């Protein structure tokens, strides 16, 4: 048994790079990468578009220890191609999930992604489907698959569907979780439907606080690596099942959400329905006060 080396690196999760996040998340010095940048497994497709490649294709996968326990970890780099899923990028995560199943080890996915990489859209889309399938296979074998959302690129498109298959999600205020991005909705439906430049609208519709309040995420943390680390340790402590009973509970939970909030025009209406005294103050609340206000939130305990 390796001695537990606690990690006390303090940094903004939002500002950090993928590699900084992984170093701050797992126990000090415990991370070992698979197919690292020295192997130069780059996208074979970006050159067609005269775009620069990156040696790790924007994702780092490997093994480490979290509070002494072995875990597998994948972390996306939102600053390369918006953290988007291409062929190599996606296949590294698919492989890691299959390894999790083979080794019976829990897995952490540090999302930072705009979704499918359009320059290799078909390969990226299929990678999403393969990853979701591999997650369900790992979960059916009793493993935890925990998603962490708080990066610059958010968790959009196919990334958000992958997040929806995780057993638990940890999110910060800066984390955004949504299928269609603000610009996509505006482009397709017009500025009257969604003004992508209205940042306050974006945060309250897709941001971490709203997702936590409606049960779209299980833990809300500060934009701080130590907070993500603590929440990840907690998330791995209690196992989550994945069977028909869980799915039935999720069906009931999501039906209830439509009944309760289906007519809401804006997130503030939903927060008011949840019984929050001053719903328009929610975006300004610091974490402690927000968590107190969120006491009667919807949660997804055994229904995810």
């Amino acid at each position, binding site marked *: 048994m390796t001695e537990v080396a606690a990690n006390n690196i303090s940094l903004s999760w939002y500002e950090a790079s993928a590699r900084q996040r992984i170093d701050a998340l797992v126990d000090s010095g415990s991370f070992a990468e*698979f197919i690292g940048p020295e192997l130069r497994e780059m996208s074979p*497709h970006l050159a*067609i*578009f005269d775009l620069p490649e990156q040696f790790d294709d924007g994702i780092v*996968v490997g*093994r480490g220890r979290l509070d002494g326990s*072995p875990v597998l970890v994948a972390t996306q780099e939102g600053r390369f191609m918006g953290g988007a899923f291409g*062929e190599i990028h996606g*296949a*590294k995560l*698919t*492989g*890691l999930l299959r*390894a999790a199943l*083979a080794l019976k080890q829990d897995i952490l996915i540090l999302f930072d992604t705009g979704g*499918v990489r*359009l*320059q*290799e*859209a*078909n390969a*990226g*889309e*299929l990678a*999403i*489907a*393969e990853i*979701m399938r591999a997650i*369900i296979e790992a979960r059916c074998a009793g493993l935890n698959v925990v998603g962490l959302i708080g990066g610059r690129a958010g968790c959009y*498109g*196919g990334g*958000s*569907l992958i*997040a*929806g*298959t995780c057993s638990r999600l940890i999110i910060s205020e800066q984390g955004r*979780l*949504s*299928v*269609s991005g603000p610009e*996509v*909705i505006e482009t397709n*439906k017009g500025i009257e*439907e*969604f003004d992508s430049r209205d940042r306050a609208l974006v945060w309250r*519709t*897709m941001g971490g606080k*709203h997702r936590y309040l409606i049960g*779209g995420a299980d833990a809300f943390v500060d934009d701080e690596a130590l907070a993500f680390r603590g929440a990840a340790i907690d998330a791995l402590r209690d196992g989550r099942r994945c*069977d*028909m009973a869980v*799915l*039935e509970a999720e*069906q009931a939970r*999501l*039906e209830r959400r439509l009944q309760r*909030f289906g007519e*809401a025009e804006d*997130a503030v209406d*939903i927060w008011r329905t949840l019984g929050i005294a001053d719903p328009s103050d929610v975006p300004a609340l610091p974490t402690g006060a927000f968590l107190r206000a969120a006491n009667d939130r919807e949660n997804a305990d055994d229904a995810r």
Partner: protein
Amino acid sequence: MTLDDILASLFPNGSRIETTGAMISGQAILPDGGPIHVLGITQGQPLGVDEAIVLAGRVIEIVKSGDRTPILVLVDSASQRMSKRDELLGLSEYLSHLAKALLLAEAEGHRTVGLLYGGSAAGAFIATALATGTLVALPGAQPAVMDLPSMARVTKLSIDVLKAKAEATPVFAPGLDNMVMTGGIHVVWDNNAPLAPQLAAVLQRPQGQDDRGRLGAERGGRRKAAEIADRVVALATVSHQDAQHG
């Protein structure tokens, strides 16, 4: 082929399948006399929270019935519904929930077959067709991640330039042939022959591993994905043994 033509060719022994709005739901009889559940989305409609929850509920009902019969998912959709309301309500959870229902149905012993007979794109494609155990298509089907005009806007390349690049690789442009080459679609059926025996052949395939990466490599549309995934598994397994012994 219209939906009615497809259903007639698939189920000459009869079916009870209703279309309500954009939703398909019902049961049919296979040539061998066994039952099959049929559900899906039609008329090129978008898949939003309201549709996804109904489809998922139907899949859960089927699994709860304990009959372990096959499920056919018919798909002719747009993309996910792009709206403020859907995102406000957490569309990603609804789409994932539907995908999970289909994946768990398979794990519970139901064969799941997707039949793409029209369009489908992005999140709607992932949550329906791509969440089935075997995905087949009819000629003329139009799978896409994003249409070329939108792709041109995002990549800041002209449609002509994109079309020229699409000649050289199946990896990004929309279309059935490209999705076949990359391994996403198992087989394209012959619409000049009866569909019932073609469905029976798919149902006789052994159930099991996700072989889309291998198909993509064999067909030359996704040469690296399967190899990279396999290498990660091998490295993780070896390093695990080292860590245990070290």
